[in-house]
């Protein structure tokens, strides 16, 4: 925030919550950042009329007076992109909450315009270009070990071209120091630094979009097997309060095979941010021996923080995600919750007295949602590396009613829908993802990957499991009306196996030390062994052995806790289970053979 045009005749004309009207000058442009009032509160231009400009203010407006000055900055709301982002916690407009705490204490004070990235910190910079190189946007000019896990690639900003005329030596530099000078076609000399700015509402460019082909592996069984999300894909998690949206976000942030996590706490609880920060700092990635915070950035705009900055937080987060994607990383962005963001839109729209569409939400809600989710994708970057952004957004429908506008409109733009079911949460079946109502449109494109990387029968079991659960649901309708007795033995067996699938396989307690994460290969073997039991039991039933006899064996009970048995990581556990099933089968088979 350097080049401020100090001369300004613009002044505050009216104040209504975070929305102010400005008169006296119309020398503003849309989405321009402005300083409001004597305390220089940060705001953004959201509407311009011939004599009135409307600004949304990112800080609390209490105490502002009509007549106070409004100063244009000439810049759009932008993020600072450079080393020092990883491991940090920013608010919705990228103010560094940790420096702010050091400087102004526990409570957030107003008008504290701090730079997002520490301007005084020196970074060890390794130069990757030399004089005479011809460069374009996206080219990597230097690398910096940003954290133990992340090599930061300093890139030429998009849209900049030229020939290198000066390069500094490898060494330690601050973010605002010039490290490369280039001369463009018009003979203008452009300094390049470790840091660049980017307007948050504008997607960063890439060369081209690719088809998604690989899953984002999450270690959560119901997601990886039933409803997988692709790297570069989008997913929404709708669910009433307490159904587990935040937990799924935390789990994916912790366990998914992403290089970078952008975690946006948007209009949610303060303690949840504290929790992420504490837990992620403690969690050490076993492969890399470094804390998860080293690859995570948190954007925290809790429910009690100013609503305009909640609106901005989503864009701040996605712009940062795109920047790391441009370096060739696979980024997962968590937005908890997009509904709070939509509510911020509604709140501001209401204060702007715009014509509302459904339930008071502005008519542009769908297009804003689309713009956000469209920024996900698997791409070839300007520098020919590959990178991706996967977006996972929580949706908190009012009253848990999925017909409301945010859920419905989100559904149009995402391709995985992980529905959280209140009844499951009430029964403490976690994750409370409804296996009948959820879907993933990626399952077909990912079939190949699963076939090649895991096993060609993966999808067979997956389909079989889903079918069994559908059958169970139909049978349960009947049982509810007339009891279980009328069912045939094959049907009763379906109920038994479905129970094993639900409890033994789909349930996964995030707090359980060993079951919180499971590699896909093990997930596959689990499916395989459960299905093996089913096939064997079917054979026994086909031999007219009553189901009641089958159930006398403890094998079904044991399979209910199969996840813990498998989770224990004991060698040869699957062979053991197979043998148990064989024994169970042989014993019964033989007994009945003898009888006959």
């Amino acid at each position, binding site marked *: 925030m350097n080049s401020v045009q100090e001369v300004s005749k613009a002044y505050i*004309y009216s104040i209504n919550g975070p929305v102010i009207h400005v008169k006296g000058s119309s020398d503003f442009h849309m989405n321009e950042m402005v300083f409001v009032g004597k305390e220089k509160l940060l705001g953004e231009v959201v509407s311009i009329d011939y004599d009135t400009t409307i600004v949304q203010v990112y800080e609390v407006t209490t105490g502002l007076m009509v007549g106070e000055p409004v100063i244009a900055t000439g810049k759009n709301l932008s993020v600072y992109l450079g080393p020092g982002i990883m491991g940090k916690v920013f608010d919705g407009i990228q103010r560094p909450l940790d420096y702010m705490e050091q400087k102004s*204490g*526990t409570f*957030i004070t107003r008008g504290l315009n701090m730079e997002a990235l520490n301007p005084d910190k020196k970074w060890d910079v390794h130069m990757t270009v030399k004089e005479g190189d011809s460069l374009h946007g996206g080219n990597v000019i230097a690398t910096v070990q940003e954290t133990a896990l992340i090599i930061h690639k300093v890139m030429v900003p998009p849209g900049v071209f030229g020939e290198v005329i000066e390069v500094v030596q490898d060494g330690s530099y601050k973010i605002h120091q010039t490290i490369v000078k280039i001369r463009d076609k018009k003979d203008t000399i452009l300094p390049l630094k470790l840091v660049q700015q980017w307007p948050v509402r504008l997607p960063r460019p890439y060369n081209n979009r690719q088809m998604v082909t690989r899953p984002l592996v999450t270690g959560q069984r119901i997601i990886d097997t039933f409803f997988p999300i692709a790297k570069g894909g989008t997913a929404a998690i709708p669910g009433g309060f307490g159904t587990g949206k935040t937990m799924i976000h935390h789990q994916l942030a912790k366990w998914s095979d992403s290089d970078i996590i952008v975690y946006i706490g948007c209009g949610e609880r303060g303690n949840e941010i504290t929790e992420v920060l504490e837990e992620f700092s403690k969690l050490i990635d076993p492969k890399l021996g470094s804390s998860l915070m080293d690859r995570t950035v948190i954007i925290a705009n809790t429910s009690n923080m100013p609503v305009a900055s909640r609106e901005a937080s989503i864009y701040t987060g996605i712009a940062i995600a795109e920047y790391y994607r441009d370096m060739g990383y696979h980024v997962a962005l968590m937005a908890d919750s997009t509904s709070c963001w939509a509510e911020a839109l509604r709140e501001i729209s209401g204060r702007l007295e715009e014509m509302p569409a459904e339930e*008071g939400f502005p008519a542009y809600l769908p297009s804003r949602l689309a713009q956000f989710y469209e920024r996900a994708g698997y791409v070839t970057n300007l520098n020919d590396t590959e990178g991706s952004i996967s977006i996972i957004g929580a949706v908190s429908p009012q*009253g848990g009613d999925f017909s409301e506008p945010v859920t419905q409109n989100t559904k149009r733009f995402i391709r995985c829908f992980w529905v959280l079911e209140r009844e499951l949460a009430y029964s403490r079946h976690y994750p409370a993802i409804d296996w009948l109502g959820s879907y993933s449109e990626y399952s077909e494109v990912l079939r190949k990957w699963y076939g090649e990387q895991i096993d060609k029968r993966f999808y067979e079991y997956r389909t079989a499991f889903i079918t069994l659960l559908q059958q169970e649901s139909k049978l349960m309708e009947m049982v*509810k009306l007339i009891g279980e007795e009328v069912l045939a033995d094959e049907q009763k067996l379906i109920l038994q196996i479905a129970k094993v699938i639900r409890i033994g396989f789909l349930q996964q307690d995030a*707090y359980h030390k060993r079951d919180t994460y499971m590699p896909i290969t093990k997930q596959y073997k689990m499916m395989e062994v459960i299905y093996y039991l089913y096939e064997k039991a079917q054979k026994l039933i086909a031999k007219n052995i009553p189901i009641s006899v089958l159930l006398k064996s403890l094998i079904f009970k044991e399979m209910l806790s199969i996840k813990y048995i498998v989770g224990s990581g004991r060698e040869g556990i699957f062979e053991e289970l197979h043998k148990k099933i064989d024994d169970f089968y042989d014993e019964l088979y033989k007994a009945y053979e003898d009888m006959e």
Partner: protein
Amino acid sequence: MQLEYIGLQKINGPLVVLEGVKRAHYEEVVEITMDNHEKRMGRIIELIGDTAVIEVFKGTAGISLKNTTTKLTGHSLEIALSKEILGRIFDGRARPIDGLGSVYPEAKWDINGSIINPIGREYPRHYIQTGISVIDGLISLIKGQKLPIFSAEGLAHHALAVQIVHQAKLAKQEGTHFAVVFAAMGVTHDVAAYFRNSFEKSGILDRMVMFLNTANDPVVERIVTPRYALTTAEYLAFEHDMQVLVILTDMTSYAEALREISSSKGEIPSKKGFPGYLYSDLASIYERSGMLKQKKGSVTQIPILTMPNDDITHPIPDLTGYITEGQIVLDKKLHQKGIYPPINIRPSLSRLMKDGIGEGFTREDHPDVANQLFVSYADVQQIQALAEVIGEDALSETAKSYMAFGKAFEQELVMQHEDENRTLMETLDIAWKLLRLLPREELDRIDKLLLDKYYIAHKGETQNE
């Protein structure tokens, strides 16, 4: 010299409009004097050029366009604070109603509070024992948590609040006792009196502060009452290192007041006529709780709300649930069965419980036992439904044991007397007694080692495994 403005340009519900105002601050407090010398305070809620929209705390009855003079005070709403505030009783706008005169201020704080930087928070982990089994065992309250009670008319939520206040005790003896800040919004005089008498009887009046806005007090005041209360709580917690428990009742009246003012302003409503900013507004109350790294004190909130039509999806409970760290839900059916406290554990939840219980906090078996009780009680519901179809006699032996468990759970664990104060060990013992009604193989949420230790079968059959 302060300017005085004569007359008003418009009056609408609790709002008045004043034109020609100079140098007014957004949300500044104004003082309106009527020609009978009565003074009313108001707050600027919108400024447009030289026009100010003002909400008048005592309402606009008796105010005309001509009979007032209005003065700006130059500050936002503040409360006078000192440690002497303990033991005092105020109305909804922090004016003493106990006849003891005003508080000599050591500090004056803005009632809107400041936003806590999430970095400055400390994650809450200290278990509070309420002596109520179902809460301590299954929906544990943690110091610094915001855990509301979702109730409905006539469901003993007042008695429950009193019991919690009376019995709440920190497991680890930091400080001695809780200081209690109690705020009533729109409650009847009877209810206000009930609370006052109960607190008096339990001898805790001298460590509590009460703010009472009763049903016939002005609606606008209801908007500020919880903010006076929370500012007081923050002062005691963060200036005087106290552990403070805040009871806010009834948040439904609060939200309805907000709706009334919003509609006077002609704002575009969202669901059920509530303003679009209800979520943010409720958050600005509920988020004022927690623990801070730099301070020894804490603010724990137990807001109470009545669900209109017992409907948990109504915007007030719904938005509350999205903000608070769980909820304790009272249930009419349990109440009708004569069970006190009528807490239904299925929709109830304490989000902070997991980090504040178990080994090192309460007892090693606590998390598994809680988990198992939740799951088994959920199974009971299914089996009950089945029993209604095929008759209880036709149930399998295991199913029958669930029926017995379900009944005992409600009768022995949930039900307790209004002044019965159980230790956590007693609660867990009851829990094990109930779990023993079920076959050991059914208890799949409990670690095997814990089962070996605690599931001592009373008839001895399951021991020799």
